[in-house]
């Protein structure tokens, strides 16, 4: 999940020659828990889809793959910025770290904006959550994911503010890494959601 994690961690992992697990044990409780919850939701979607393949395909045809793909790109890019930001903060770089987190946040806000454009376009064509089970899943799953993006954006805003000064305690580094891991999870969930909703044929 952490691109470039191994080289970024070299200097801070002196305590553990076996390599460094980003964040702390607790955040993995949250992340694996979230991923198993979402897996249950994805399974439920596929199950419903098997009952009405044609209807789900017709619903899928109404979605804009372009917006979906741009959003995927935005989240992937933001994950890269966040990984760079965590690395910069670990090296005590109080200029580069907040800049990277702010760029990551900008990508996240772009995602939210595009999602709004997408929803508005569907509403304008008279499509709502009640139109078809496909759209119940589409709106339900993407809204739930959007909630995660909002929370993650709040965390990135917090990191942008906090890394303007050097982090003082080991627990601050752990929290920063945990927030970064959460953002990567939000990214990863979208990477599963995008093909599931937009591409599966």
């Amino acid at each position, binding site marked *: 999940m952490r691109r470039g994690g191994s080289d970024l961690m070299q200097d801070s992992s002196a305590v553990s020659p076996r390599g460094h697990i980003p964040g*702390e*044990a*607790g*955040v993995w*409780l*949250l992340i694996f*828990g*979230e991923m198993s*919850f979402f897996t*249950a*939701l994805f399974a*439920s979607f596929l199950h*419903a889809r098997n009952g009405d393949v044609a209807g789900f395909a017709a619903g899928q045809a109404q979605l804009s793959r372009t917006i979906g793909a741009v959003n995927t790109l935005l989240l992937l890019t933001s994950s890269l910025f966040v990984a760079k930001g965590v690395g910069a903060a670990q090296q005590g770089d109080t200029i580069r770290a907040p800049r990277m987190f702010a760029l990551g946040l900008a990508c996240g806000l772009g995602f939210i904006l595009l999602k709004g454009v997408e929803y508005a376009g569907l509403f304008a064509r008279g499509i709502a*959550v*009640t139109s078809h*089970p496909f759209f*119940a*899943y589409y709106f*339900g799953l993407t*809204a*739930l994911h959007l*909630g*995660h993006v909002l*929370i993650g954006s709040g965390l990135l805003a917090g990191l942008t503010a906090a890394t303007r000064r050097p982090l003082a305690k080991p*627990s601050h580094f752990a*929290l920063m890494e*945990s927030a970064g891991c959460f953002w990567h999870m939000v990214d990863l969930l979208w990477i599963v959601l995008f093909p599931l909703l937009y591409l599966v044929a």
Partner: protein
Amino acid sequence: MNQGPNASIGTQRLFVWLAIAGALLFAFAWIALMRFFPPPPADLPADQVAALYSAHNVRFRIGVILALIAGGFLVPLSIVISVQMARLERGIPIWAILQGLTGAIGSAFIWLPAVAWAVAAFTPERAPELTAIFHEFAWLMFITPLSLFPMQLLGIIYIAFTKEEPDNVSAFPRWLGYLTAWQLVQSFGGPMAVLFKTGIFSWNGLLPFWLPLSLFGAWYAAICWTLLRALRCQRAAD
């Protein structure tokens, strides 16, 4: 005679046990007597809704009585959580106040639905559509209000990540902070039930009901356990 901040440890332990007993009694009434587990489908026709309340009317109403007695179980728990948070805060313990107030007010959404269920069961011979209104009112009040719960959790998360005391004696170890954060993130599925009558987003579906309920059960057990452990440690240190 100990007059310090640890003088109330015995009462705090009692409160935690009250909260455990209350939650168990509520669960018993709700599951065994009201038979709401698993929940009735959100798209049930009115005559079948009315039948839910008229079929075993007396048993159901006894269940409501027990639920009304037990429904305040979150209040003593919130108080102990707040007292423990206040120990760890500097100056005016505003996070503890936020947690205690939101916990107390939020607990209304546990016992108020029981009153609406009581109304639904009170006159079983009335027109089914009228019963169905209170049935929907009760269920939506029980599943969807998310006005206060996240704010209650925020303070716990904050304390878990900023406290100075070691995790193994604390009521708020860091892992509990993450568990609470997960609970906060997942709780947003509840209000979606307002939009759906069938499927995983309806009030008997995976997202508003099954996932938050199992997570709430795990969270509740976890915080009762860490509170009792912390109280044991504080008494030993006294």
